[in-house]
């Protein structure tokens, strides 16, 4: 038996300040984050949920109809216990623009925002979303801590970007940081920066080769844009690096906890296993695993094999011309038995799916016996209102 992930204890612990939900795409990360946020708020926490890419109707249920990049209150939350729930959807480009505006003079900011290379990086660089999610998390935490006696939020729940792999999300701050710190950027910045040139003297032979090669491949004009961008951003580098480090430290802090979300499918569980191992390697605090959409039958006392057998027996009896069985009626017992046969066959299929999900979950536990886990049963419809989120919250709490 794997230990049970007690999400109520987690959100009830005032020491828990940040919860990060991560996992493969399409496993219900956003729903899990929103359900945890709602449950925490209704139990008295002041919560903000940062979502990356919510389903349209789920977003609507949280009042996220506009992308304004700041948290706004979710209405219809039960605030009887003194809690509150704010939610926001990440606007990647806007977050980046705000960083630029906050850390440079207005003239310089304007110059950077107009640079074509900046525009491309801020709206399409493969790691920008991950980095900006972390940047926003840092901002929310600062905002939360502004007044320690009366914090605006005492719990931040983050839904992570649907990365192609878990690595991206953990590596984004480091990757951008090391790029900004690297030799390469100094080469690019060289023509605009006296200090850079002095540094480059040592490497000049190599630098010439590199610059020539770059000009060949990228074209002189692109290199020019990059150089202007790097020069304009130069004063901000220290800040970028510092904040990336700060966010990484925040993620490793004991007041942060990670929840890995998965679905009972081979691929999703494989990603989850990988993520669990990776978090462990990085020394990140992992609370446990949520397995969403576990198929459960409502009549667990009846096995798939028995149900199928019973359906066949009923069919044989009816075909055998027996008029016995359930009470009469003009259309005879066989028609009613057809209904029961259908129910039994349907149950058999569902019981098989449930068994498969169960065995996939068991296989994960066998490989990770110490990871606390909670299973959330599959809902029969899509979840797109607070009532649906409350039901998921109940399931997350094991109720």
């Amino acid at each position: 038996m794997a230990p049970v992930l007690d999400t109520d204890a987690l959100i009830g612990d005032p020491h828990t300040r940040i919860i990060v939900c991560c996992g493969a795409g399409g496993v219900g990360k956003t729903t899990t984050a929103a359900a945890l946020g709602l449950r925490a708020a209704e139990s008295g926490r002041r919560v903000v949920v940062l979502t990356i890419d919510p389903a349209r109707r789920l977003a609507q249920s949280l009042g996220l109809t506009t992308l304004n990049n700041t948290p706004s209150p979710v209405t219809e939350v039960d605030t009887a216990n003194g809690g509150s729930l704010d939610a926001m959807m990440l606007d990647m480009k806007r977050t980046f623009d705000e960083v630029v505006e906050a850390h440079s003079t207005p003239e310089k900011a304007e110059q950077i925002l107009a640079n074509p290379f900046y525009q491309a990086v801020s709206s399409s660089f493969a790691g920008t979303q991950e980095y900006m999610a972390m940047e926003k998390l840092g901002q929310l935490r600062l905002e939360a801590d502004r007044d320690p006696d009366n914090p605006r939020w005492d719990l931040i729940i983050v839904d992570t970007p649907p990365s192609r792999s878990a690595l991206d999300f953990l590596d984004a701050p480091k990757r951008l940081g090391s790029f900004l710190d690297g030799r390469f950027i100094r080469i690019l910045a060289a023509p605009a920066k006296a200090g850079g040139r002095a540094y480059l003297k040592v490497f000049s032979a190599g630098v010439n080769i590199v610059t020539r090669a770059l000009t060949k491949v990228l074209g002189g004009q692109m290199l020019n844009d990059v150089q202007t961008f790097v020069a304009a951003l130069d004063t901000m580098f220290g800040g970028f690096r510092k904040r990336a480090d700060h966010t990484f430290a925040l993620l490793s802090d004991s007041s942060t906890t990670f929840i890995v979300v998965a679905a009972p499918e081979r691929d999703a569980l494989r990603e989850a296993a990988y993520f669990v191992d990776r978090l462990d390697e990085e020394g990140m605090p992992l609370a446990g695993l949520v397995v969403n959409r576990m198929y459960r039958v409502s009549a667990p006392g009846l096995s798939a094999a028995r149900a199928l057998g019973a359906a066949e027996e009923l069919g044989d009896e009816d075909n055998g011309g027996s008029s016995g069985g359930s009470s009469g009626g003009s259309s005879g017992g066989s028609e009613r038995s057809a209904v029961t046969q259908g129910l039994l066959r349907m149950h058999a299929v569902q019981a098989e799916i449930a068994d498969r999900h169960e065995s996939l979950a068991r296989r994960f536990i066998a490989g990770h016996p110490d990871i606390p886990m909670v299973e959330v049963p599959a809902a029969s419809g899509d979840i797109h209102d607070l009532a649906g989120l409350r039901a998921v919250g109940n399931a997350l709490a094991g109720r």
Partner: protein
Amino acid sequence: MAPPAGSARDTDWDGVRLHIVTGKGGTGKTTVAAALALALAGQGRRVLLVEVEGRQGISQTFDVPPLSLTETRIAHAAHGGEVFGLSVDAKAALLEYLQLYYKLGRAGGMLEKFGAIDFATTIAPGVRDVLLTGKVYEAVRRRRDHRAKGPGAAPAYDAVVLDAPPTGRVARFLNVNHEVADLARVGPIRSQADSITAMLKSPRTVVHIVTLLEEMPVQETVDAIAELRAVGMPIGGVVVNQVREEILTMEVLELAARNAISREDVAADLARVHVRATDSIVDGLLLEARDHAERVTLERAEAEVVAGLGRPTYRLPSLPEGVDTNGIREMAETLTAQGMA
């Protein structure tokens, strides 16, 4: 082995050389791409299956060792058909490209040492996508005999299947030209992007979308088709994956939805075949039926949205045993039977 006479059979995508497969995360786009590759390889053809996100989804699907940077045969198909697999890596593609076109030699190593390769493949916007799609472009155009010239020369692969990024990113990924246009108005990256774009938007290419009959995947399918159209990409078919077998008749579903199935009759039937008809089992069965009816109603609504897209649609049944190599073969046969390959 020569293709049998049956190879002249019409499929929905005759003449297409590059099949791009996308879909929301969790819809099974990698397994569908694998099944399509196997289906296309039937009739003795050579097919290359390419992944670009380094997840090793292909090798896991076919249960073979992780793919390296060279093309490896991963499966046999009917009549001597073969499927090859390739996991494209941007860094390796860039070094190969530099070596091929610029003979950079020592500068290549220097670029690597100074972090320029990392820069180009991870941070310089669009360059990564140009490199990844560039490798696919090269594979589609390659000749079996590299000295052969002209339109009559046999291609190295009869078809290439690309397991593309998910729906949310696919339009941007394929619109390489736009990505680099502002940055590189001239130069080799630009001309490479132009050639790739010409092929991607030609009738030799289609983008297929994989979905489930659920709200979000269908919504993303609708959005992706609009986005792909907007950038001029040719749209292929919609593959509805994991379709559940219809077990209950419409009549029973309606009764179940209205909660109108007779408890007593069910209990009596169960007793007749000696199933212990406890309250919890009878009520459980009725509840399952009602939930099932609710799901079916939702699925029908989503199926109508899919039908409204007006694209050729293929339906792959849910495989109760999960997807293994045999499952992929079953899926491939279904796709062939439905005319996708």
